[in-house]
């Protein structure tokens, strides 16, 4: 189960002059589709038994944030926190996490989100599939496990597919796969006693080129839009007439 620690983009501030995000002030959280995937994993554990292990990598991971995943029902966590990963792209992240997953032991189902909430690369699942030679089903909407076979419903833009795959399998969760629960106080307390293991990057035995990014971030800037911001007031009927007049003036109505 892969969970990424990300800045909360809904409360992120930016520097007014450079337009760069103030990541140093951001609230940290777990990725949205990662939490959905985690919920799916925990439900499978509750029905069929087994163990849910959380794996994470980042430049400066905060154990308290990772504990949220344990509070949501995972059993233990292994993570790599290393400044080198500040520059990590999907190539580096996938190489690191594939090794970390091996440290955690063989898994029947490897879950991750369809896209991370900060960078939204849509890459980890398919990349792990190549590295580990395990089939991957992306964008899962629904999963059903029976014996050593999993059935997955997934949505592409123009079709919904029903697939079947023998375990082990990698599944990436779409936001609709499960509704994450709010951890109870009891679960939060229990989480503080669950094992959390920090693994050093050097323990993973990765050659230099496997942690060398292929893509370098030059700048990040707020996307600015300027809109007219006209507020139309009055009773619905009057307001509707004003809107039609305004749109006519803009020349965006046909006829």
């Amino acid at each position, binding site marked *: 189960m892969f969970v990424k620690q990300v*800045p909360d*983009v*809904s409360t*992120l501030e930016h520097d007014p002059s450079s337009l760069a*995000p103030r990541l140093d002030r951001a609230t940290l959280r777990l990725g949205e589709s990662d939490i959905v995937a985690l919920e799916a994993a925990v439900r499978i554990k509750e029905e069929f038994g087994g163990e849910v292990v959380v794996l994470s990598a980042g430049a400066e991971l905060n154990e308290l944030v990772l504990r949220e995943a344990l509070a949501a029902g995972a059993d233990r966590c292994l993570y790599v926190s290393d400044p080198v990963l500040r520059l990590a*792209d*999907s*190539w580096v992240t996938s190489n690191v996490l594939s090794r970390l997953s091996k440290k955690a032991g063989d898994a029947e189902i490897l879950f991750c989100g369809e*896209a991370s909430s*900060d*960078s*939204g*690369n*849509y*890459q980890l*699942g*398919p*990349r792990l599939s*190549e*590295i580990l030679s395990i*089939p991957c089903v992306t*964008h899962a909407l629904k999963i059903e496990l029976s014996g050593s076979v999993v059935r997955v419903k997934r949505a*592409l*833009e*123009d*079709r*919904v*597919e*029903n*697939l*079947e795959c*023998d375990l082990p399998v990698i599944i990436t969760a*779409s*936001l*609709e796969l499960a509704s994450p629960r709010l951890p109870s106080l009891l679960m939060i307390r229990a989480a503080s006693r669950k094992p959390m293991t920090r693994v050093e990057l050097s323990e993973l035995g990765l050659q230099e080129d496997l942690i060398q990014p*292929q*893509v*370098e*971030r*030059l*700048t*990040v800037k*707020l*996307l600015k839009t300027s*809109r007219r*911001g006209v*507020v*139309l007031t009055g009773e*619905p*009927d009057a*307001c*509707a*007439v004003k*809107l*039609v007049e305004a*749109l006519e003036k*803009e020349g*965006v109505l*046909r*006829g």
Partner: protein
Amino acid sequence: MKRSLIVAGELEDVLGLRGVLDSVGLEYAEAFVPDRLLGERAVETLGLKKIYAVERFDEAQSEALAGALRDLVTGADTLLVLAPSRKMYRELFARVGQSLASACVNDCTNISLEEGKLVVERPTLGGGYVESLEVKRFPAFLTFQPMGRSPRRRDATSIEVVKLGAVTSGRRTPKLLSVEVAERGGAELSRAKVVVSVGRGFKKREDLRLAEELARLLGAELACSRPISSDLGWMPEDRHVGLSGRWISPQLYIAIGISGQVQHTIGVRGSKIIVAVNSDPSAPIHREADYSVTHDLYQFIPALIKALRERSPSRG
């Protein structure tokens, strides 16, 4: 001359991607496409040197397409491999990128290539920001979000065609049990001048009739926020706009009962005029709008329909 490769299942995407290559002056291009595109006139005027025509492209699993694509790229001097930003291509490129130790960047919105330095832009941090990235390993696999670039038309040329048959994977892959083909609509949506878009402010599926009526009067296409298509299934997935859906730039975008989270609004930033109808004055959509209305949609949309009918009584 270095080669570039276009990977796409639809004609409009082949044209858009050729436009992307033209914008950075890359002339030598080949295409990896379904064999059904072979007869298309528009393809013949793109100056493509070679077409790899894949049988049953649309049914192929990503592992199989990845295998075939990897074979085409390995050993050849390829600079860029481009595809549209859709789920199957993002997955395909992540796979090939990983196995060839090549860079892969999804959802690019811009590209520049100067003195061999390749820089792309893409949305990040939920869509509220744009990052600019230098790509350092080639071939670079890039998926493009809204293309909106027209290709330069050349004289029709004869193109070398390599038929690839149906590709299969030798590996253990998921078995496809059944496919429910959804109504397509995204293409019309991308071309539409006016778009009426619905969100969770609508209480029941039947109520979408209000939006349909409005769209009919305006000659508009319908779109929606992600929860409407993905959670509720009230509209086809192809009609949702935003970070994970379509990116559109109509003349007029009317958002009804949509809160306007950044993941939604990024998909409509290119619109000329945005109208927001949302009963909550603090909803973020109002800050992204040219004209904002804070009424209950159930009162306002009928009023708007009436006002439009009165403008042109012959219509509707």
